[in-house]
C-alpha cells in the first residue's frame, strides 16, 4: 500500500515548553481527515484535532498543509502527494489563531471580530411584518444576491490564509465581510443598520484588503470574500464615505478610464494623496528636454464608442460613483493640448525614424523614484 509521511504539529501548552513536529506514516487513501483518523486509531491516540461531519459541512477540520490552508475532509491524500511530489507533508494548525492543543485552535477572536459587523438581520418594519402570524416572504430572485454567502460554515480557512489579517490585527477577516455583505443586500434589513455596517466595516479594515484572492482560493464553500469586499467598498463610496484613499483611487479609475481608456499613473498620486510634487518634478524634467509630459496613450480610434458602452452600463446599473463630467472635461482639455507634443507622439516619431525611445525613457525613469 502507498504511504506518505505526515509531520504533524504537536503542542500541549500544559506539558510542552515549545511546539514540535511528530512524524507518522499514513496510507495514501481517502482524505487528509482519514489519515488523521488513522493516526488516532492506530498510531497515537493523543493527537488532538477537530472534525465532525466528515463531509464539508461543519467547518471544523481546516488546517494547513505545507503552509497552505486546506479543509481536511475535502482534501484527498492523493492530491497532496501529487502536489508536493513526495515531499513530506507538514500539518499545521490554522494560521493567525491561538493554539489550544495540537491542531485545535481558539476561534473566539475571529468570531468576536465578526460580531462587530452586525452579521444578522435588523428587520425593517416596513418590509417585515411585525405580526408573527404573517410570513416574511423572500423571492428566489432576491436570494440570488446572497446565495453564495449563506453557505459560509465558519471554517476560518479564509482567515488563516488572509494577507490583510497577517499584517493588520484589526482586520475583521474575509468571512466577516462576506457575512456583513449578505445583509447589506437583504431587502428586509433596515437602512440604518446598513449604514452602520459600512461604518464598522471601514473601521474594521475594509480598505486594508490587498485583493490577493487567497480567500476565494481556500474557501471550500465557494464564498468569494474578496468580491464581497469590493461590493462593500462600492457601497461605502456610494453612501458618501469618500475621504479614504481607496475611494479617491476608485474615482480616478472611473473618470480616467472613461475619458481616455486608461488610468493615469502620473496623476494618481496627486488625486489620491494630494502629492503634486511627483508629477511636477517629472513635468519639469520633461519640459527641460523639450517634451510636454504626458502619460496618456493616444486615444484609440474607438474611444467614443468605448465611452458609449461605458455610459450605457453605468446608466442602467447600480454603481458606486457617478461619472464626474467636469473632471472628464478637464482631462479632455489636457489631452487635446498635450497631444501636440506628448511623450507618446515623441516615442512614435522615434519609432518611425527607426530609433529606440529607450534613451529618453531611461533618463526620465531615473527621476521617477518612489514617493
Amino acid at each position, binding site marked *: 500500500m502507498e504511504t506518505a509521511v505526515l509531520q504533524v504539529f504537536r503542542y500541549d501548552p500544559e506539558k510542552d515548553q515549545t511546539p514540535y513536529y511528530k512524524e507518522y506514516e499514513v496510507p495514501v487513501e481517502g482524505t487528509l481527515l482519514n489519515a488523521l483518523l488513522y493516526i488516532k486509531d492506530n498510531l497515537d491516540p493523543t493527537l488532538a484535532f477537530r472534525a465532525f461531519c466528515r463531509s464539508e459541512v461543519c467547518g471544523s477540520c481546516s488546517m494547513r498543509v*505545507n*503552509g497552505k490552508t486546506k479543509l481536511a475532509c475535502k482534501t484527498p491524500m492523493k492530491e497532496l502527494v501529487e*502536489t*508536493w*511530489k513526495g515531499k513530506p507533508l507538514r500539518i499545521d494548525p490554522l494560521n493567525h489563531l491561538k493554539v489550544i492543543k495540537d491542531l485545535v485552535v481558539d476561534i473566539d477572536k475571529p468570531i468576536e471580530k465578526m460580531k462587530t459587523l452586525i452579521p444578522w438581520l435588523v428587520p425593517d418594519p416596513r418590509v417585515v411584518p411585525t405580526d408573527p402570524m404573517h410570513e416574511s416572504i423572500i423571492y428566489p430572485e432576491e436570494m440570488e444576491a446572497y446565495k453564495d454567502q449563506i453557505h459560509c460554515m465558519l471554517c476560518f480557512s479564509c482567515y488563516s490564509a488572509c*494577507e490583510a489579517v*497577517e*499584517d*493588520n490585527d484589526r482586520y475583521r477577516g474575509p468571512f466577516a465581510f462576506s457575512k456583513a455583505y449578505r445583509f447589506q443586500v437583504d431587502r428586509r434589513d433596515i437602512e440604518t443598520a446598513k449604514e452602520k455596517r459600512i461604518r464598522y466595516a471601514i473601521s474594521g479594515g475594509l*480598505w*486594508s*484588503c490587498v485583493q*490577493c*484572492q*487567497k480567500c*476565494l*482560493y481556500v474557501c471550500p464553500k465557494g464564498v*468569494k470574500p474578496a*468580491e464581497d469586499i*469590493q*461590493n462593500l*467598498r*462600492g457601497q461605502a*463610496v456610494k453612501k458618501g464615505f469618500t475621504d*479614504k*484613499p*481607496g475611494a*479617491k*483611487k*476608485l474615482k480616478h*479609475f*472611473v473618470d480616467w*478610464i472613461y475619458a481616455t*481608456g*486608461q*488610468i493615469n*499613473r*502620473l496623476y*494618481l498620486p496627486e488625486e489620491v494623496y494630494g502629492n503634486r510634487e511627483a508629477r511636477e518634478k517629472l513635468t519639469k524634467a520633461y519640459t527641460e528636454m523639450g517634451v510636454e509630459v*504626458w*502619460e496618456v*496613450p493616444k486615444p*484609440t480610434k*474607438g474611444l467614443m*464608442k468605448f465611452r458609449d458602452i*461605458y455610459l450605457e*452600463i*453605468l446608466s442602467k*446599473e447600480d*454603481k*458606486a460613483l457617478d461619472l464626474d463630467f467636469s473632471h472628464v472635461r478637464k482631462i479632455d482639455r489636457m489631452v487635446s493640448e498635450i497631444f501636440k507634443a506628448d511623450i*507618446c507622439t515623441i516615442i512614435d516619431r522615434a519609432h518611425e525614424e527607426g530609433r529606440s*525611445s*529607450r534613451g529618453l525613457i*531611461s533618463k526620465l*525613469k531615473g527621476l*521617477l*523614484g*518612489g*514617493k
Partner: protein
Amino acid sequence: MVKVGFYQGCCFQGQDAHMFETMKEMFEKIDVEVVLLEETTCCGGNTIDEENRKLSYAINARNIALAEREGLDMLVSCNTCYMVIAKAKRALDTNKKLRDEINALLKEEGLEYRGTSRIYHLLDFFRDVVGYDRIRKAVKRPLKGWKVAAYYGCHVLYPKEIAVDNSDNPSSLQEILKALGAEVIDEYEGKDACCGYHSFFTDKSMTLKKLNRILGGVKKVGADIVATPCPLCFKSFDIYQTNMENSPKVPSSFLPEIMAYAFGIDKEKAGLAHHLIKVEKE
C-alpha cells in the same frame, strides 16, 4: 513562428513603453511574434469592479473581442490584468444572458465576444506554447552564478479557476529560470506574500509591510535578485521599495528582462540598466 496578440494594459505604455520593446525583442529570440492589440483599454485594474462588476466584464469582453477580431489568442503579462480578463472570460463563457447583453453593446463598434481566443499569461505561454526547451536553446549568456529568487505574485495562482499553475506548489517560473542557467531559490520567507502593489493607494502601510516581508526574506537567503513575471510586482519591488524606511535594497527583475539578457540582449536594451535599485550582477 508563433503569433500572439499582446494585451498591454497600463504597464507597457507611457512611462513604461520601453518594457514592451524589451518584451518584443525577447520574444523574437524564441520565434514568437507579439502583435500589439492596439485598440484595447485598461482592464479596470480589479478596481472598476468596485464601481460595477458588469462594467468590468464589458470592458474586458471588448478587449478580448479585439483579439478575436484578429483571430489571435491573447497574451497578458500583468498578473492582475490576467486575472481580471480571465475572470471576465469565465463569466462570459458560463452566462449566456450576460454575454448577449454585452454583445448587444459591443455591436455598435462592430465587435462581438465569441469566446474563441484563449487567454495566456506569460507563464503558461512559456510552458505550453514556447516550451522550456526552446528557451534553453535561445540562451546565449547563461545566468551562471546568479542566485535568483522566484516570485509568482498572487493573481496567476488564485483563485483556482484561473490559475495557470498548481496554486499550492507551482513550478513554471523555476523551470524558466533554470532554463536560463540560473540557480533558483524558491524557499524563502515571504515567497507567498502579496507584493503590496495594489494597496499602495488604499492602505500604504500594507504595501510597506509586505515588501519588508518579501524582500527581507529574499535578502536573508542570499539571493542576488528576485524575478517575477508580473510588471506590477516588479514595480512594487523596484519603485515602492524606495519608500521603505530601512530598504533592504534588493534588486529585482521583470522576468522578460533577465530572459532578454540571457538571450544575449545587452543590459541597457533588456531594461536591466534602468532600475532604481541597481542590478549589479553580470
